[in-house]
């Protein structure tokens, strides 16, 4: 071409040049047109882009303060300060925790504060105390509505009042009314909880923060969705009807210093000589007054409430005692708590049954940061443990879901390799639609009864629709067994325990990458070894009300924990079952039981748990369940979803006419979470909802329930960048040609000169 041009220009020097200049101008004109066209498109892009719009709308700074602004008088209150002190006394098999929340009001207004906080899942909250100056007011247990009414009345009268309500078995709300300007008010709650045991190790776990939950959009049935506002409120199928109550404002750790300083003290009186005592996520100082006692305090004094506190301890003896029996006499009844660790099954000569394992991994936004690393490491470890004759599948979910293989595949090198790279590539983003993933995992496609079917479910459990998940499990569990792996610094332990209970499996917690191997090894010991099955408990003389009524299978290293209410402390307790294929039994004479504390509360708490499970299993009607729970709760003075504790100061303190402002105390983001991943993408508020809220903000009195989005179906993104790329590519090629021609023209002009 170059040659041809040269020859051509030599033959008709000025004509050729003229043509080239003309062509050049033409091409330049086209290029300018194209560039301006692209510029036009690009300038439109932000307005069209769904992602950009959503991200800007969902900054909780806007959204949350919007909802805060709505409260009562419409003005945001400069922060109420909260400090927390946790004091735990472990006495043998149980522990008693006292949580003191210090509310300090540095503002010039009278304030009502609400604080949403987590507690241990199986704790029985039985005491509320409010300290005003030097007076202590002790709270009473009341039915929830009644307690609420008493509190509201006191609040209006200007009396100081405190109310403890249960939102979930592990989420509670404290409301405190009429904190005067410059005043400090103390609210104390106490709860009783059993010590956890696994193999040779005992543990306690104190959750300190409620991880922000994903609340799936409700599906509304038979509603006209026209945007005239008439469709709101006609919903009756919201999966999280109390979403407002479990979503306190969350501070962005990038923009705010950590809040809610917490101090923790543990008085550990094990009743046996102690060996190692270890705090897994906090630096602690450990003092040893004697061989059976330890006092554990935080090394740094206080820590921000942003992760679970986990303490484990081991007995000095090589093996933990395999039997523990404790009693307590309350009223006219005796209560008994029994721990029995069945012997480990002998490794039999015959090979264990091959297994079909469905691994489910949560890669939603709440898993962002360190959690997804822990989950991936755990899953990769699990994949490495599969045997060649096992079958497996991998499911990942956020608000979308992928099933790696159409059906379970043999765990050969090729398939495991494929799964490994699939897991390695996972990124944490999006919402947490857990129910479809659980459904997929529970779908028993092969139905091969020669294989044991197991589900290993890795998640932080940050959802608000726990009940939906439980119902899915009960409806579809079939012969599958569910093993939950709680990931991250503040997992939803209630979801883990209840899901594994309904799924007749076990659960474990992984709070850091360092724990992955040890905890997964423990979990695999449970998966791979035969469980203790067919367990029954029988009292020889006493009439007993035992919980759990039907004893679940016990996996390796787990103790069987029984609580019972007896009419008399006489005779013995016989426990029978099968370890692998061998019968096993143990007889415990009751007069050997040691004195324990708060056992009646633990028994009642477990009875309440049993009733909730029975309701989920449709063995009990909701009405009967409520009746049972209410009776137990009032009898034993514990907070449940139907009962609350309320404390009222008799003398009014707020002068009449002084306004009261509400402050929803913010919480930290759990440690290791990624704020943008949780709130940047999470469809908690649709634009419509937000607009509704802003409209409300203009009319302070008209606070209403957050409107719910009427649409469960989100359509995927269905445009490729192909066109854009091809156009941009073409433009660049054209520009290159123009430049080329322009350069040649310069060159030729120079030559001619």
């Amino acid at each position: 071409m170059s040659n041809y041009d040269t020859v051509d220009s030599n033959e008709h020097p000025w004509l050729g040049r003229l043509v080239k200049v003309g062509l050049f101008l033409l091409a330049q004109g086209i290029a300018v047109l194209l560039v301006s066209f692209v510029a036009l498109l690009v300038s439109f892009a932000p307005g069209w882009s769904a992602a950009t719009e959503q991200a800007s709308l969902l900054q909780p700074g806007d959204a949350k303060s919007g909802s805060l602004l709505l409260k009562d008088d419409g003005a945001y209150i400069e922060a109420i300060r909260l400090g927390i002190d946790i004091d735990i006394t472990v006495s043998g098999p149980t522990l008693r925790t006292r949580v003191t929340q210090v509310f300090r009001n540095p503002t010039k207004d009278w304030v009502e504060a609400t604080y949403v906080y987590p507690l241990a899942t199986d704790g029985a909250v039985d005491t509320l105390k409010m300290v005003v100056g030097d007076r202590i007011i002790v709270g009473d247990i009341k039915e929830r509505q009644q307690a609420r009414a008493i509190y509201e009345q006191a609040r209006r009268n200007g009396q100081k009042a405190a109310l403890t309500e249960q939102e979930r078995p592990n989420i509670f709300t404290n409301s405190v009314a009429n904190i005067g300007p410059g005043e400090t008010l103390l609210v104390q709650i106490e709860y009783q909880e059993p010590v956890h045991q696994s193999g040779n190790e005992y543990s306690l776990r104190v959750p300190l923060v409620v991880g922000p939950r994903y609340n799936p959009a409700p599906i509304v049935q038979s509603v006209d969705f026209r945007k005239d506002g008439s469709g709101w409120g006609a919903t009756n199928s919201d999966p999280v009807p109390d979403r407002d109550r479990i979503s306190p404002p969350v501070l962005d750790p990038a923009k705010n210093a950590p809040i809610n300083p917490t101090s923790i003290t543990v008085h550990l009186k094990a009743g046996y000589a102690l060996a190692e005592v270890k705090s897994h996520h906090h630096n602690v100082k450990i003092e040893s007054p004697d061989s059976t006692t330890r006092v554990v305090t935080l090394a740094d004094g206080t820590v921000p409430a942003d992760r679970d506190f986990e303490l484990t301890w081991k007995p000095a003896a090589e093996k933990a005692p395999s039997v523990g029996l404790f009693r307590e006499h309350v009223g006219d009844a005796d209560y008994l708590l029994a721990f029995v660790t069945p012997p480990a099954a002998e490794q039999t000569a015959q090979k264990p049954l091959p297994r079909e394992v469905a691994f489910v991994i949560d890669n939603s936004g709440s898993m962002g940061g360190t959690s997804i690393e822990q989950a991936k490491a755990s899953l990769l470890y699990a994949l490495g443990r599969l045997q060649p004759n096992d079958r497996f599948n991998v499911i990942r979910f956020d608000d979308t879901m992928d099933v790696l293989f159409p059906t379970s595949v043999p765990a050969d090198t090729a398939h495991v390799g494929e799964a490994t790279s699939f897991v390695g590539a996972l990124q944490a983003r999006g919402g947490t639609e857990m129910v479809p993933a659980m459904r997929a995992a529970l779908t028993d496609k092969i139905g091969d009864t020669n294989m044991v079917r197991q589900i290993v479910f890795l998640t932080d459990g940050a959802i608000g629709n726990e009940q939906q998940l439980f119902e899915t499990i009960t409806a579809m569990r079939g012969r599958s067994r569910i093993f939950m792996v709680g990931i991250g610094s503040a997992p939803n332990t209630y979801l883990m325990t209840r899901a594994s209970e309904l799924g007749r499996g076990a659960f474990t917690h992984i709070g850091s990458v360092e724990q992955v191997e040890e905890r997964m090894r423990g979990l695999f010991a449970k998966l791979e070894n035969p469980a203790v099955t067919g367990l029954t408990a029988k009292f020889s003389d006493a009439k007993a009300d035992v919980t759990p009524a039907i004893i679940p299978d016990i996996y390796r290293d787990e103790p069987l924990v029984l609580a019972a209410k007896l009419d008399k402390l006489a005779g013995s307790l016989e426990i029978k079952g099968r370890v692998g294929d061998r019968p096993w039994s143990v007889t415990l004479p009751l007069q050997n039981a040691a004195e324990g504390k708060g056992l009646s509360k633990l028994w009642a708490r477990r009875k309440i748990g049993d009733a909730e499970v029975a309701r989920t299993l449709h063995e009990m009607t909701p009405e009967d369940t409520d009746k049972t729970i209410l009776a137990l709760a009032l009898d034993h003075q514990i907070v449940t979803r139907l009962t609350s504790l309320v404390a009222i100061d008799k003398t009014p303190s707020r002068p009449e006419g002084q306004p009261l402002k509400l402050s929803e105390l913010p919480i930290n983001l759990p440690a290791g979470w990624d704020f943008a991943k949780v709130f940047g993408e999470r469809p908690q508020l649709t634009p419509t909802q937000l607009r509704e809220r802003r409209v409300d903000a203009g009319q302070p009195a008209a606070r209403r329930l957050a409107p719910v989005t009427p649409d469960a179906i989100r359509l995927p993104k269905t445009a490729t960048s192909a066109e854009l790329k091809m156009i941009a590519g073409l433009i660049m090629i054209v520009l290159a040609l123009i430049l080329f021609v322009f350069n040649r023209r310069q060159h030729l002009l120079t030559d001619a000169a």
Partner: protein
Amino acid sequence: MPRLISPLVLALVGTILFGDGAYIHAKAWLAQMLLERAFDRSVATGQPVKPWSWADTWPVARIEVKRIGASTIVLEGTSGQALAFGPGHLHQTVDAGERGVAIYAAHRDTHFRFLRDVAIGDVIDVTRSDGKRFRYRADSSAIVRFDASGIDPATQDFELVLATCWPFDAVTSGAERYLLHATLIGDGE
């Protein structure tokens, strides 16, 4: 020749960009050929068949509009990867032929480009991977936001929705979606 470098680099980048765009189309077209084969086999065997060994999805249905000669194979799931190869079945929706709404979504510039040509009243045939055929009639279309589709998943009717991005000729992706609603009029054949 330094003055040649900038046009050459520009041309190279342009070619790569163009090629990248063309690759999306090529992938969409080639995948459908493989999917066609996999789908025929899964109809024959009654088992889900993967179109290629490393695929993380599998064909679940064929959508045909005879009048305009359009036919495409639908995959399970609507992850980005799946949509590159074919229309996806929204997994929280029912299968075609069941009570409720079956929703299939695909890219407007590849597999569902033909939606612009589908007229109200056209017959849409859906063949499931178990070989069952269902005949739908297109009865309305709508333009909605992606998060406010107005689709009632709990409907008592037998419905089908084909969804893609709107407008068809835009170059950037947006929040609007084009929905084609159709109602079951009978089993095929």
